[in-house]
């Protein structure tokens, strides 16, 4: 990583300080979601404080990715409320209007499992698209910021490349830079390393870890327990559309209170 600290979005601050003045960045109450007749989220309650790194773990189909997608409005919850950073609380029954949904998206930025970079735009264009076109910020300023972020993740030389010319790990780092350039209050990661070749996982995890130590508030859906233990300040175990257990990594991973959590961890530790 570059030694010089590039200009960074202003949102995150030191963990200790921000916890003191504004505790909850994200408050979710009674969030429900069904696809057709299938209940995916029963009733999710979740509070994420500023500077917290929350890892969502759980078996596939448990609803953890759906929680994340609801937080960004990519999936529309059927019931409950989401409150990000004290903006008007979003109620999902009845469904919120487009404008309200946009305010939800403005607060957060997401990093996708399959990167979802825009293939017809260069790396730099991918990063500045949102800030320039949507947020209407000054192009020169945004470009300078984007180049600094790309430099930080070691991709300056790739700024004019198209996504197909990059490795998976490089694409995902661009995905992270694209999210950071939006200056969100909340970073959402949806299994950010699941699509990567094993040898490329390290770079991406290291970058996320750095962001964590800088005080970004993050919600990470992950299968990497070791990573969760190291980076997360809290872990929530999701199963059957509910949060079964939520606590500090060392408690939850070492001494799970719930039988379901225990079984899940056991399966991961002893797959065969």
């Amino acid at each position, binding site marked *: 990583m570059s030694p010089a600290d590039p200009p960074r979005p202003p949102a995150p601050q030191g963990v200790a300080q921000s916890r003191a003045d504004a505790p909850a960045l994200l408050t979710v109450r009674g969030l429900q979601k069904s696809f057709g007749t299938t209940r995916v989220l029963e009733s999710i309650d979740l509070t994420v404080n500023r500077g917290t790194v929350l890892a969502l773990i759980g078996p596939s189909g448990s609803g953890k990715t759906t929680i994340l997608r609801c937080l960004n409005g990519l999936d529309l919850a059927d019931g409950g409320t989401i409150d990000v950073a004290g903006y008007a609380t979003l109620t999902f029954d009845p469904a919120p209007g487009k404008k309200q949904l*946009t305010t939800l*998206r403005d607060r957060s*930025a997401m990093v*996708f499992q399959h990167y979802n970079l825009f*293939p*017809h735009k260069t790396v730099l264009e991918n990063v500045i698209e949102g800030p320039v076109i949507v947020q209407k910020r000054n192009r020169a300023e945004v470009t300078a910021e984007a180049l600094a972020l790309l430099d930080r993740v070691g991709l300056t030389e790739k700024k004019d490349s198209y996504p197909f010319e990059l490795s998976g790990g490089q694409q995902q780092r661009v995905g992270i830079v694209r*999210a950071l350039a939006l200056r969100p209050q909340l970073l959402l990661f949806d299994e950010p390393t699941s699509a990567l070749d094993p040898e490329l996982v390290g770079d991406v995890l290291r970058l996320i870890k750095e962001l964590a130590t800088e005080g970004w508030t993050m919600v990470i859906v992950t299968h990497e327990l070791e990573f969760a233990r190291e980076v997360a300040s809290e872990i929530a175990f999701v199963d059957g559309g509910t949060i079964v257990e939520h606590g500090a990594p060392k408690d939850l991973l070492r001494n799970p209170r719930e039988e379901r959590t225990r079984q899940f961890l056991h399966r991961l530790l002893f797959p065969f």
Partner: protein
Amino acid sequence: MNESSWELFVSSLGPLVLGAITGTIPLALSSFAIGLVLALALALMRLSRQRWISNIARVYISLVRGTPLLVQLYVIFYGLPSLGIVLDYWPSAIIAFSINVGGYAAEVIRAAILSVPKGQWEAAYMVGMSRSRTLSRIILPQAARVSVPPLSNTFISLVKDTSLASLVLVTELFREAEQIAAFSQEFMLIYLEAALVYWVICLVLSTGQGFLEKRLDRYVAR
């Protein structure tokens, strides 16, 4: 080929090419341009979640594809006057061809839009874009690449279909050919010559398609 038919061939080439330049090509280009706009609108209507909007487009496409182009042309040129709507040759032909292209190209564009992965919509929404901005900046540029080969097909068909305009009295390549053939009685020669001119036009179009595809492929792994 004897000397006099060669002379006829050479002397007819001028009028035929002129017919292509003043009739066939502008007719095809303007109909295609209008038809594409219509097609985009219809494709978006087809993709609408509002049932009735998508049904309007569905019925339109079904009517256009389910009836002969010649009949459509005749309805507009010979039929509409009985309703008091009298259109000149050119507008009649352009309207008929545009309506026709619109119906066919709508399905091409719809399929091209659907071929763009869902993740692209999600990433665009994630950076804060509205639906219409996502379409114009993210989805359509990618759909364009996919739709060039099938739309080229549509365009090439259209170029040849414009020969039907001779039946509503538009002076274009084929009408020129008919007149020369009737006058000279050299049907085989003149109609083959007309075919040759159509073929050359379509060859040029195919080459253009190649260039366009190459240009749009610059961001795709080879």
